[in-house]
């Protein structure tokens, strides 16, 4: 009994820092955002106490921004996963173990430079004196990439690839190689082995990586700002504008609440889908 109580205190003490952090820096700010979202814009901007649903009723005015975010963020995540998978696969299954750490570190190397600087570099690369001018030599003339959704997607794959590779790598590395042999012994073609054994077992890694990238992309505003030139507009940009230009905090709060709800919904649905799939596959394999 004494011991039990003792350990409860220790648990509480260990949880306290994280608990305080969550209460003061997550729960309370969220409450403030929620309260503000029912308020009104003060005459010179900012917040004025009120109780109105106007901010929520006005959400369709940012419909295009929600649409852009909800199409380009999943698409960017998918493209990043497609680009990352072969890299992780080769690293985990086809690379000499003594090179693996070096190669993984090299994949992370872009993070050593500021994200902003790297996007600036892409502005040059995607501008008319960059890649389009090289493509002009092989006959693809007057291609415009910068400030288009394509540029934002290229930036997303480039910027988030280093976040996607490691989780996939980890799940592929843990994969029991005997399963691949067994599959081959039982007469499966390499392609079938890949789709029925390797890919399903790597799915948890793909899911984790995709979550990381998706969440960051949904809230991003720097990438669309720099590579979209203010023309490819995300919810993040709408929020920056509402707080830092038009100073309509209550409307900004309502847009934030909507974004949080949408994220919560998509992520729970996605997790349920992934979990059900991986469980089924695992059951089928056992």
């Amino acid at each position, binding site marked *: 009994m004494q011991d039990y109580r003792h350990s409860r205190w220790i648990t509480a003490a260990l949880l306290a820092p994280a608990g305080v952090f969550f209460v003061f820096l997550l729960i309370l700010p969220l409450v403030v955002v929620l309260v503000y979202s029912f308020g009104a814009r003060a005459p010179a901007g900012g917040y004025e106490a009120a109780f109105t649903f106007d901010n929520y009723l006005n959400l369709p005015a940012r419909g295009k921004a929600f649409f852009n975010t909800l199409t380009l963020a999943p698409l960017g995540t998918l493209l990043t996963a497609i680009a990352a998978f072969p890299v992780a696969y080769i690293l985990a299954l086809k690379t000499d173990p003594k090179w693996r750490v070096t190669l993984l570190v090299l994949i992370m190397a872009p993070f050593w430079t500021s994200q902003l600087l790297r996007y600036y570099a892409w502005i040059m690369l995607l501008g008319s004196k960059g890649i389009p001018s090289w493509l002009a030599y092989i006959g693809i003339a007057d291609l415009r990439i910068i400030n288009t959704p394509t540029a934002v997607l290229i930036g997303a794959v480039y910027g988030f690839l280093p976040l996607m590779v490691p989780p996939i790598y980890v799940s592929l590395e843990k994969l029991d190689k005997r399963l691949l042999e067994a599959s081959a012994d039982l007469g499966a073609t390499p392609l079938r082995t890949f789709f029925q054994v390797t890919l399903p077992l790597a799915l948890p890694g793909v899911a984790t990586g995709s979550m990381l990238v998706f969440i960051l992309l949904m809230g991003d505003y720097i990438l669309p700002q720099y590579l979209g030139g*203010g023309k490819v507009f995300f919810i993040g940009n709408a929020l920056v504008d509402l707080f*830092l230009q038009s100073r309509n905090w209550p409307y900004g709060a309502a847009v934030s609440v909507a974004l949080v709800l949408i994220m919560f919904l998509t992520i729970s649905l996605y997790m349920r889908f992934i979990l059900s799939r991986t469980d089924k596959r695992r059951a089928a394999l056992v």
Partner: protein
Amino acid sequence: MTKVTGHISAEEFLAQLRRYQKGSISRRQFLGVTGLGLATAVLSSAVPGFRPRKAHAALSGTVNFTTWPSYFAQENLDNFTKETGVKINVAVFGSNEEMLAKLQAGSTGWDVFVPTNYAISTYKELGLIEELDLKRLPNYDASTQEQRFTAEGVIDGKTYAVPKDWGTTGFVYNNKNITQNPTSWKEFFDLTQGPWTGRVMVHDYQLTTIGNALKYHGFSFNSNDEKELAEAEKLLIACKPHLFGINSDYKPSLISGDAWASVCWTGDATQLQRDMPEMKYVLAKEGGEIWSDFYAIPKGGQNVDAAYALIDYLLTPEINAKEVQAHGYPSTDSRTNKLVPKEMLENPILYPAAELLSPLEFGAAATLTNPLRAEIMARFKAA
């Protein structure tokens, strides 16, 4: 008093003395650099009547200077640091709205910032700026300033901001790519939707972008009329798919050739034309904006002494003349204009013809803070 001036050599002392005599550094800087100031301060503080006034105390630390892109001479800032030991931290913004939003949100850490004429009354009403103590700006002389540019810095007889320079808002185009010889906002926005598609930029700033769209229809740059604003919004949204970008930092895209034309301020046109003579600056015949920028000190600044010292330094005619040559905006100070090269004073970008200047309007305080304009801009960007 954290910066202690170390021992100074005889040569260095004489060099500094000569600079002081020539007037290229002020007395205070001379005393600071040579250490005489410190010595005098220590001696005189023993005598009650000679305790130094705060502005003359030795400067230290960092001054956070918030301004617009390419709007200062780096050489001047470096020299200020060399002479006073105060480091300058520069931050650049894209619009007065953005500056206002940051100050409203609180604790920016700024010491000096650069508001435009129509923004000052709002800052004063919201209690966001300090009244200036002109005694601490000995190099500023209100009598040598051009009055039409300085009026809005003074509210109820109190000075809240001192003028930096003035300029206009027109548009710039690259005549290697553009052959139509545009002279109006009508042509600017019409051609954007035609042969210039994908090559035009507008500011990420409601005041200028909406203002010029209003001029297209012949309305006032400052209109807050709902119907007129609705027409401006319609025009902007029709142009949106044809724009290259919406950004107040438009020079890089014009230089790289991605953009051919942009809404543009005086100094950016001067700077662009310096390296690219094909860049033409147009003040549209319907009119547009004329404005002046000011130096001001926000409430709650951490280094007020250094803030006054920096403003005073930059307003010194010799220093200000170097500023003008770097940023390419005309000064409001006749003393400075005497020191600026003649070709700048004759440059039509800086000093447009009277018939082009007369239809221009100064922005109004209500134009900046109108919530409908803010929302129209946000809708245009989100469209």
